[in-house]
C-alpha cells in the first residue's frame, strides 16, 4: 500500500558493537526501549516473558486494529531485533533455568517493583552470585529505595512528577504531555546509557554492577533551562503555549500555519533576532513585509546591533500578524528552503506521511523494511538512529512471537533435549510456539 525507499532487514554488512554480548530482557513498556537500544547496537537480546506473553503485548494500536498479543504495534516497535522465550519465574524450574541463562549472559534488564526480583530469589545479589560480572539494570518509577519507591506511575505520572508537563500547554489550561509516551522513552534510553557505562567498566575491570534507574528522575533531566531558572533567579518558567520562553518571558508565536500545513518558525535569538535584517528583506521580496522594512522596525528588532529591549504588546502582536499572513501564502518546503538560505533554522511540522515520503530520509536509506513472515507481509520501520562506521546498527528481525525462540535458546543454548522441553511445557513453565498469529 505504502511504497518507501528503504533498506531491507537482514542486509547486515558487519556485526554491531555489542555482538559478543547477551541480554536477558524482562522489561515491560517502561523499559523495552532500553533493550531495543542494546539490540540495535548488536547485542543478542532475549525477551523473557511469562507463559501467555508479556501484558504489554496488549498495548494499542494493533495491526488492522485487531487486538491480539502478536499484533501490538507497540510491541513490534520496542521489541524488534530481540529474540523471545517464555519462562515462568514463579516456578522453581523456571527460576533454575533463568539462573542457567544468567550464567551465560552479560546483562539483565527488568522493570518489576523494587524488591519483587529479590522476593523471587532473583535480586541483584542472587544473580551476581552465579554471574559476578553481570550488569543488572532495574528501571522503576521512582528508584529502588526512598520515600516514593513503592508508588505507582505510568508515563503521564512520570512526566508530571519529573516537571515536564508544567512546562507545556497554555496558561489557564491543563499542562500537557505529548500524546505518546515520552517519560518511558527517557527512562529507557537513559537507563541504556547507564547500562553501557557499567558495561564499559566491566570490559576494563571484569566487575559487574547494579544500575538503578528512575522514571521520575529521568523526566527531571529534560527540562531545558527551567531548573537553573529556578535555582539562579527563582523563576518557575511559565507554560508557553504556542510561544517560546525566552529569558523567562513568552515570545509571540512559534508554529505558524503555512499553505499546506504548519511550519516551526524560529531562529537563534527568536523570530527576528540576529537575522532581523535578512528576514525582513525576505518578507519584503515576497511583498509581505508590511511596514517592517523601515529603520524604525530594524532598530526595534535587529539584535545584531546589541540586545534589544522587549517589544511592546502591540508591536509583538503586529509582528505575529505579519508573519501569519506571510506563512499562510507559501508551502512549507518553500518556506524552509528560503529561510535556510538566510540562515534561519526553520523546519516544517511533519506528519507521519511527510516523514515517510521525506526526500532526505529516503536519500539516506533510513526507512527499513522488516518481514513478518507469519502475516505474509513486510512493514516499514524507522531505521538506524546512529550510523556507526565500523559497527553499524541494523534492523535484523521483527519482534518475537510468544515463545518463538524457546527451542533455540533453551535447547541449543542450555542444551535441554526434546523430552525435557516437552516436560517443561507440560508443567506450564514454558510455552512451545504457543502464540502464532
Amino acid at each position, binding site marked *: 500500500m505504502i511504497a518507501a525507499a528503504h533498506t531491507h532487514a537482514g542486509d547486515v554488512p558487519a556485526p554491531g558493537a555489542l555482538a559478543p554480548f547477551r541480554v536477558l530482557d524482562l522489561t515491560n513498556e517502561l523499559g523495552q526501549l532500553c533493550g531495543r537500544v542494546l539490540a540495535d547496537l548488536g547485542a543478542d537480546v532475549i525477551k523473557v516473558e511469562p507463559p501467555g506473553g508479556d501484558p504489554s503485548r496488549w498495548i494499542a494500536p494493533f495491526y488492522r486494529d485487531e487486538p491480539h498479543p502478536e499484533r501490538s504495534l507497540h510491541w513490534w516497535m520496542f521489541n524488534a531485533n530481540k529474540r523471545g522465550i517464555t519462562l515462568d519465574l514463579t516456578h522453581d524450574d523456571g527460576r533454575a533455568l533463568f539462573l542457567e541463562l544468567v550464567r551465560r549472559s552479560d546483562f539483565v534488564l527488568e522493570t518489576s517493583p523494587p524488591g519483587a526480583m529479590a522476593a523471587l530469589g532473583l535480586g541483584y545479589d542472587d544473580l551476581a552470585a552465579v554471574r559476578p560480572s553481570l550488569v543488572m539494570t532495574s528501571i522503576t518509577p521512582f528508584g529502588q529505595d526512598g520515600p516514593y519507591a513503592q508508588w505507582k506511575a*505510568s508515563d503521564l505520572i512520570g512526566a508530571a512528577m519529573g516537571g515536564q508537563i508544567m*512546562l*507545556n*500547554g497554555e496558561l489557564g489550561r491543563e499542562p500537557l504531555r505529548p500524546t505518546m509516551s515520552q517519560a518511558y522513552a527517557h527512562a529507557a534510553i537513559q537507563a541504556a*546509557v547507564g547500562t553501557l557505562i557499567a558495561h564499559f567498566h566491566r570490559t576494563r575491570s571484569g566487575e559487574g554492577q547494579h544500575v538503578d534507574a528512575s522514571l521520575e*528522575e529521568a523526566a527531571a533531566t529534560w527540562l531545558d533551562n527551567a531548573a537553573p531558572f529556578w535555582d539562579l533567579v527563582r523563576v518557575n518558567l511559565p507554560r508557553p503555549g*504556542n510561544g*517560546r520562553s525566552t529569558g523567562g518571558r513568552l515570545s509571540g508565536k512559534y508554529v505558524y500555519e503555512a499553505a499546506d500545513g504548519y511550519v516551526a518558525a524560529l531562529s537563534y535569538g527568536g523570530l527576528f533576532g540576529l537575522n532581523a535584517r535578512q528576514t525582513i528583506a525576505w518578507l519584503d521580496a515576497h511583498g509581505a513585509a508590511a511596514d517592517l522594512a523601515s529603520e524604525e522596525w530594524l532598530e526595534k528588532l535587529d539584535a545584531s546591533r546589541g540586545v534589544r529591549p522587549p517589544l511592546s504588546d502591540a508591536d509583538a502582536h503586529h509582528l505575529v500578524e505579519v508573519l501569519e499572513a506571510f506563512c499562510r501564502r507559501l508551502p512549507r518546503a518553500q518556506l524552509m528552503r528560503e529561510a535556510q538560505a538566510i*540562515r534561519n533554522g526553520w523546519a516544517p511540522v511533519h*506528519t507521519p506521511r511527510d516523514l515517510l515520503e521525506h526526500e532526505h530520509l529516503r536519500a539516506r536509506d533510513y526507512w527499513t523494511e522488516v518481514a513478518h513472515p507469519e502475516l505474509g507481509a513486510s512493514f516499514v520501520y524507522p531505521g538506524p538512529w546512529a550510523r556507526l562506521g565500523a559497527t553499524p546498527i541494523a534492523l535484523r528481525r521483527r519482534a518475537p512471537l510468544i515463545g518463538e525462540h524457546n527451542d533455540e535458546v533453551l535447547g541449543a543454548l542450555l542444551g535441554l533435549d526434546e523430552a525435557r522441553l516437552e516436560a517443561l511445557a507440560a508443567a506450564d513453565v514454558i510455552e512451545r510456539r504457543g502464540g502464532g498469529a
Partner: protein
Amino acid sequence: MTASDRTGGRRTPAAPPRDAFAGIRVADFAWVGVGPLTSKYLADHGAEVIRLESRTRPEALRRAPPFAGGQPGQDRSGYYANFNSSKLGAGLNMSHPRAVELAKRVIAGCDVVTESFTPKAMRAWGLTYEALREVRPDVIMISMPLYGATGPWSMYQGYGHVLQAASGINHMTGYRDGEPIGTGIAYTDFFVPHLAAAALIAALDHRERTGEGQHIDFGQMEAAIYATETMMLDYTVNGREQRRDGNRHPQGAPHGAFRCAPRGDDDDRWIAVACFDDGEWAALCGVLGVEGLCADPRFATPEGRKRHEDALEAAVGARTRGWQAEELMARLQAAGVPAGVAQTCEDLRADAQLAHRGHYWLLDHPEMGRCAYDGPSFRLSRTPGRLSKAAPLLGADNEYVYRDLVGLSEQEFIELLAGGAFD
C-alpha cells in the same frame, strides 16, 4: 557517601569513587545542547572532557539566560553551566592561522572527538574523520548535526525547537483541536543525547576490545523519530495518521491533569491521574468521595469511561479542585492509584524522592557561586559517577591543555596567546 546540605542537593565527596571513564580524554568541539549533554555523561563518569570554545564565536548558551544573580556574563549562564559539569575549558580561535594545527595536536592526545556543526564546518577546517585518523589512528569521532552528514538536508541548520517539529513530535503534541505546539522546550536537545551517548560508549567499548576506532554519523532527526512511539508504524502498517489528543491515552481513562486547590496565591496546581483498570478507577472514586460516580453505569467499564471521557474528566476535575495537590497525591498513591503532582522546578528541588537519590549536585563556581546541577538519572552501584567540578570558565584550562598536553614551550604558548590563538 555524599552529604546533603540545607538547599537539598549534594556536594562532591572528598574521597572519589572509581570512575568508569578514567583515562579517557575527549576533545569536545560540540556546542549548545546535544553535544555538551552527550559529553556530560562521559565527564560526569570520569573522562577528561575538554570543551574547545572561542570568544570570537561564542557558544550560544554562554549568552543565554538564566544568569547568576540575573547579571549577564560569558561565565555566568546557568543554561551553559548545567550541561558542562566536570569539564575543562580551553580557547581555540579557528580563524587563527595555527588553529587547525593546534586542534590536531590536541586531538592526537584524545580518545574521542565530538562535534555538532553542520557538516561543512569540520570539512572546511580539514578536521574530517579521515584527517583525524592520521593523527590518532584509533580515534572515535561523533558528528551530531541536525540532519546527518549526507543527504539533501544535511546543510540545513536549526535547533531543538524546530527539530521536534521536523521529527513528528509537534504533530503529536497539543490539545485535541489545537495547533501542533510541541513540548514547550527545545525537546530533541534533551532526547537525542542519550542515544548519541549510547552509540559513543558502544564504540568506545568496541575499541577497548578490538583497538578499532570509528566515525559515528549521528543525524539528530533520525534519532528523534524514536521519540514518536507507534506514530510511524501505525501509518506504515495501518495507513492511519495518529494525532495529538492532549493528555489522553487510547486505553486509559481518566488519564489527564486535573486542577487542584490553590497553594497560597498560586492557583496553577495540578495533579496527573492515570487509571487503566476498574480497580484503579474504584480506588480513585473512593479517595475523591464520589462512590456515586463509580456506580454510574456510563463509567462502569474501561470502554464506557473512554466513551464518556468528557463527562468523566469534568466530574473528576470538579472533585480534585478541593484538594491540595500533594495531599491528594499521597492519598491516591496509598490507595493504589497512579497519581502525581505536576511539579514545578521549585517543587523538584523540594521533592523527597529526588532528595533521597541526591539528584541535584551543588557545585561552587568561581563567578556564579554555588549552583545546582542535574546529575545522571541512574545510580551505578560500583562506579556511580560524580560531578567533579562546576562548568569551566572560558579558556580556564589553556595552560594545562596547551602546555601539559600539547607540549608547547612557554615561549610558544605566550606568543600564541598574545596572537589571539586561544581567543
